[in-house]
C-alpha cells in the first residue's frame, strides 16, 4: 500500500511549550487512522498543521506527494476542524455550492454535489435552511458534509462526534464506516470505543511525542480475552489464573479482567464461559482481544 501522508521530524512550539516534538509517522492509503491522546497532547496542533492552518517550526509533511498548502491538494484533502462553523447567515445550499465552486465544479455540478453530500449526512430536507436554524448535531453533520464534497482522498475529522447525542454520534460513525473504502480517514476523538470500532491504525500522542500502535488484536503465541462481569466475585483473579492455558491475568478496572492465554487453545472462550457458569459468575461482555483503552493505559 502507498502512503498518503508522510510526516518527518515535525516540531511545533507555542512559546516555551513544545506541542509536538519530532513527530514522524506514515499513513497508508485506505487505513482509517485514529489520533489519540489526552487533552493538550498536541492532537489539534497536528491536525492544524496537516490542514495548513498552522506552520510547523521544523519538519517535513508530504501529503499525496505534495507539500503542505499546495493548491493541488484542494479537493483531495478535506477536514472537519474542531469547533469550526459555517456562516450562520447563509443557507446550507448556498455555502456548500460556494465550496464546490471553489473546488472547480461547474454550477450545475456544484448543486448536484451539495445535494449528494447533504443526503449522505441525512440533511437533504434542510438544503434551504440557514446554519443558525440547525441544532448542534445538525451543524456538525453539515460540517462533515462539506468535508465530503467532491470525494476527497483524505478526510481529517477532529472530534467529529464530540458533544453529540448517541443517535447523532452513531449516524456519523456509520457515515465514516460506509465511506472508509473510498477515502482515508484520520480521526481524533476521546471516545476510545468509537475509534476501536472504526480504526485499524492508532497514533498515540502524549506531551507532543508520538507512539504508534499498528493493531490492537494481537496474534501470535498468545491471545487475549477481555471479560467484564456484572459483580466482582471474591478472589476472581486467582480463580481465572487457575484456568488451563492461562498465562497471565490482569484486572484493568473493577469487574474487568484481561486474560492472556496460549493461542493454541482454540476453544478457550468456550471453556471460559463454562467456567463462569460453573462458578455462578454472570458476565456482561466477553471481548475477543484487548480493548484499546487497556492497551494504551493498562500496560503491564
Amino acid at each position, binding site marked *: 500500500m502507498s502512503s498518503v501522508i508522510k510526516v518527518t521530524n515535525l516540531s511545533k512550539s507555542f512559546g516555551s511549550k513544545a506541542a509536538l516534538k519530532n513527530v514522524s509517522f506514515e499513513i497508508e492509503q485506505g487505513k482509517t487512522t485514529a489520533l489519540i491522546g489526552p487533552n493538550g497532547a498536541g492532537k489539534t496542533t497536528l491536525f*492544524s498543521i496537516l*490542514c*495548513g*492552518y*498552522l*506552520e510547523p517550526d521544523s519538519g517535513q509533511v508530504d501529503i499525496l506527494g505534495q507539500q503542505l*498548502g499546495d*493548491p493541488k491538494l*484542494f*479537493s483531495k*484533502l*478535506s*477536514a472537519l*476542524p474542531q*469547533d*469550526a*462553523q*459555517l*456562516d450562520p*447567515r*447563509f443557507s446550507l445550499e*448556498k455555502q456548500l455550492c*460556494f*465550496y464546490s*465552486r*471553489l*473546488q*472547480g465544479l461547474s454550477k450545475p455540478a456544484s448543486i448536484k454535489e451539495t445535494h449528494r453530500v447533504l443526503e449522505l449526512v441525512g440533511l437533504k430536507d434542510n438544503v434551504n435552511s440557514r446554519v443558525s436554524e440547525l441544532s448542534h448535531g445538525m451543524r456538525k453533520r453539515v*460540517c462533515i458534509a*462539506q468535508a465530503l464534497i467532491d470525494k476527497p482522498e483524505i478526510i481529517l475529522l477532529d472530534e467529529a462526534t464530540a458533544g453529540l447525542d448517541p443517535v447523532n454520534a452513531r449516524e456519523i460513525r456509520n457515515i465514516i464506516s460506509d465511506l472508509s473504502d473510498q477515502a482515508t480517514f484520520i480521526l481524533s476523538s476521546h471516545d476510545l470505543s468509537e475509534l476501536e470500532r472504526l480504526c485499524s491504525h492508532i497514533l498515540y500522542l502524549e506531551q507532543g511525542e508520538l507512539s504508534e500502535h499498528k493493531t490492537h488484536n494481537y496474534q501470535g503465541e498468545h491471545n487475549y480475552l477481555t471479560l467484564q462481569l456484572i459483580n466482582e466475585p471474591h478472589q476472581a483473579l486467582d480463580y481465572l489464573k487457575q484456568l488451563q492455558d492461562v498465562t497471565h491475568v490482569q484486572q484493568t478496572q473493577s469487574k474487568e479482567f484481561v486474560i492472556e492465554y496460549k493461542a493454541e487453545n482454540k476453544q478457550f472462550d468456550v471453556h471460559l464461559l463454562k467456567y463462569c457458569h460453573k462458578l455462578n459468575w454472570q458476565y456482561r461482555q466477553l471481548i475477543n482481544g484487548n480493548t484499546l483503552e487497556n492497551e494504551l493505559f493498562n500496560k503491564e
Partner: protein
Amino acid sequence: MSLFRVWQITQFELTRLFATKRGLLALAAFAMVWFMIFKYLIAEAVPFLSGPMFKDIARQLAGGIGFQELISWPEAEFAIYWVISLYCFPLFSLFVSSDQTVGDRQRGTLRFLSLRSTRDEILLGRYLGQLLIVAILIVSTVLATLLIMSYRDPSLFSSGLLLGLKLSIQLTLISMPFIALMAFLNIVTSSSRLSIVMAILLFTLGSAVIAYLAHYIPFIDTLFYVFPGEQIADVAGQKNTSFIDWLLPVVQSVGWLFISLVALRKRAL
C-alpha cells in the same frame, strides 16, 4: 493564484450585502441616509448656490476654502454631492469593510475556505468584493444625483453623465486604501469592532503622534503618506489635481494589501 477562485470569493461577498437580512438592512439604512442628504442638503443647497441673491457670497466663501472650481460647475448638485461624498464614502468604506476576514476567522469558517483556496486568494477576493460593493453604492448615489439634477435642468444630463462617471471613478479610487487598511486590521485584531477602533486610533492618535514628532525629527511627516485619504484635501477643490494625487491611493492600497498578505500567510487560522 487562481483568478477563478478569486472571482468566486468576490461574488460571494456581493451576496453578503445584497442577499442577507443584515446586508439588506444596512442597505436600507444607507438609502435612508442618502435620501436625507439629497432632500435636505443637496436639494436645499442648489438654489442657494445658483440663485442670484447668494451666488456672490457663495463664491467668496468657496474661494476662501479652495472650492472656486466647484462653484463654477453648472451641475451644482454634483458639486455638493462631491464635497459630501469625499468625506462620507471613505468613512463608510471603513465601516462596511470592517469584517472582511475577522468574523470568519473567529468562527472557523476561514478554515473551510483555506482547504479550497489559498490565503492570498481569500484576502484578494474579499477585498475586491468589498471594493465592488462600495463602487456599486457610489455609482447608485451618483445616478440618484444625476436624476435630481436632470429633473431641475434636463439640458445638463449628458454633461452630468460624464461628470458623474468621473466622480464615481475618483471616489472609488479614494475609498480603495481605506478598504485595504481594514483588510490589514482584520488580520491583526480579533473582531470587526476592534478593527474599527484601531482605525479610529490610527487616524486620530496616530496622526497626532506623527505631527508632534515631526517638530523634532525631520522627514517623519512622510509617514502621513501611509494614511489613506492623505490627498483628500488636495483633490477636494477639483482644481490643479496632479496624477500623483490619484496614484497615491492605488499605491497605498497595494502597500496595505501586501502587508496584509504577508500577515495572513504567517497567521494561524
